[in-house]
């Protein structure tokens, strides 16, 4: 089994702009947790967007979960995204629905029975400590709580990979630590996690790899931690049915 993410000499340029990424090669092992750092504008968000197929590389190859993203047809993009949990800096919640309905959405999209949906949404909300807010509107939640709703939504369908873009960007230091711990807990049960952040102070003490972007290239990385590659992905979660 290969790495869950593999970038091979990837370059990216926004239409009409300069090269944001010029030559990025790295891998994230299965079950590994790593951070992407770099100054503002270094291309952290862009890198995550490439993994989530929100944009396509202008050069090089991106492989995710053994799929070459360039080979995906339009109709395959949605099922592909269902296999990844994405957490956004601006939460991207739906504010005309309850917390429960927000977290349930990935399961509803995939067509789970309501009884299963209910069970798993509760489990996800429990994991982020928001079980008592399931009937609230996200509008009535604080920034940190909304971020945790976003995290619950990302993990509810038990993806093999979680991408998080500045998940602590809007949070106070205390809450930021909590959220990072949350990601570590998911990682401990075998989920691969890639987090873009510039909250260096939060992560320097953590034992995870850091991929540092500068000038469109990876300029430094802290060595790989022992990888949980041998752990299989969640049974039943792999749509290719391995």
């Amino acid at each position, binding site marked *: 089994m290969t790495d869950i993410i593999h970038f091979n000499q990837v370059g990216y340029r926004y239409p009409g702009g300069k090269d944001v990424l010029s030559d990025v090669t790295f891998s994230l092992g299965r079950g590994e947790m790593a951070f992407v750092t770099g100054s503002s504008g270094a291309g952290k968000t862009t890198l995550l967007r490439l993994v989530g197929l929100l944009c396509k590389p202008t050069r090089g190859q991106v492989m995710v979960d053994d799929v070459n993203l360039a080979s995906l047809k339009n109709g395959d993009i949605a099922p592909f995204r269902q296999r990844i949990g994405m957490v956004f800096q601006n939460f*991207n919640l739906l504010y005309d629905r309850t917390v429960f309905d927000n977290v349930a959405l990935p399961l509803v999209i995939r067509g789970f029975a309501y009884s299963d949906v209910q069970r798993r949404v509760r489990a996800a909300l429990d994991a982020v400590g928001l079980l008592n807010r399931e009937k609230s509107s996200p509008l009535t939640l604080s920034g940190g709580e909304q971020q945790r709703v976003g995290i619950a939504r990302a993990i509810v369908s038990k993806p093999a990979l979680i991408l998080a873009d500045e998940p602590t960007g809007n949070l106070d230091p205390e809450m930021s630590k909590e959220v990072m711990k949350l990601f570590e807990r998911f990682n401990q049960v075998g989920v691969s996690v890639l987090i873009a952040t510039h909250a260096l102070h939060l992560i320097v003490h953590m034992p995870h790899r850091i991929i540092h972007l500068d000038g469109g290239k990876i300029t430094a990385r802290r060595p790989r931690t022992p990888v949980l590659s041998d752990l299989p992905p969640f049974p039943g979660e792999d749509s290719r049915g391995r």
Partner: protein
Amino acid sequence: MAAEESLQVQPLPLMQRLTQEHTRVFFFSLGKLGRNPVGTLLTALVIGVALALPAGMHVLTQNLSKISYSWQDSLQLSLFLKDSVSTERGAALAREIRGRPGVQATRYISREQSLAEFRSQSGFGDALDVLQDNPLPAVIAVTPERGRNKLQVEVLLGELTRLPEVDLAKLDQKWLERLYAILGIIDRAVFIVGLLLGIAVVVTVGNTIRLDIEARREEISVMKLIGAPDSFIRRPFLYTGFWYGLAGSVFALVLVLAGTLALSGPSETLASLYDSSFTLSGLSFGSSLLLLLTGIVLGWIGAWITVWRHLADIQPQ
């Protein structure tokens, strides 16, 4: 988040999944419309008026052709006899023709009777005195059996024309043909108006849903971000089109019914003046069903076109 839990939790089988999802969206879209009752009703009303117009015109032509059909009973054939045919032979011929199938009655009018009738009816009596001879031919007026259609009457006409005594045979139906022609034009007009208003319905629904999509750009973008396929995003909008079409055609039915009721009194008064038992009929059950179906299909098409044109524009950021 235990691993053993994920073993039992699988997406539902396809049929069950579709049933659950369609049921959900059916009520979800209805609820969305219900939360904006005024806007929904106004849109449905516009659609209703657009559908009621051709439907009402259809009812009108249906009734007109019903009237004209009942008038067809008063069709008459006039057989103009050759001058050489004697009065006796003419009267005998009239009796013979009455014995033919498809003939209800005949009346022999001799040349003298023709002249007398003409004198009394036309007011040109004195002018005829100038003429030496009686210029009018003898006529046999033939009334076909009730319920014979136009083709059968024409066949009869052809047979009678070939009789040696008959100089000229004529169907007194010019006015009826004109009426049919006018009905034909109205029918065509109903079709064209229906087509144009059908397009108007599609555009109305399409535009309403376009605004809806515009207002929910964020939501659609988020859905795409978390892996919702196009079919999933499309579905609520298509159901919204369905509801608009249904509500609009129900409105149209009510409008046509109200119109029929409003006109039935005066039209019966009119019919009684003509000694006719005619009653105005509204949309038949089949036509009502067709109207509902048309509304639903048009609403759905309007939604589909809009969704197809605008959803692809929205890409997650």
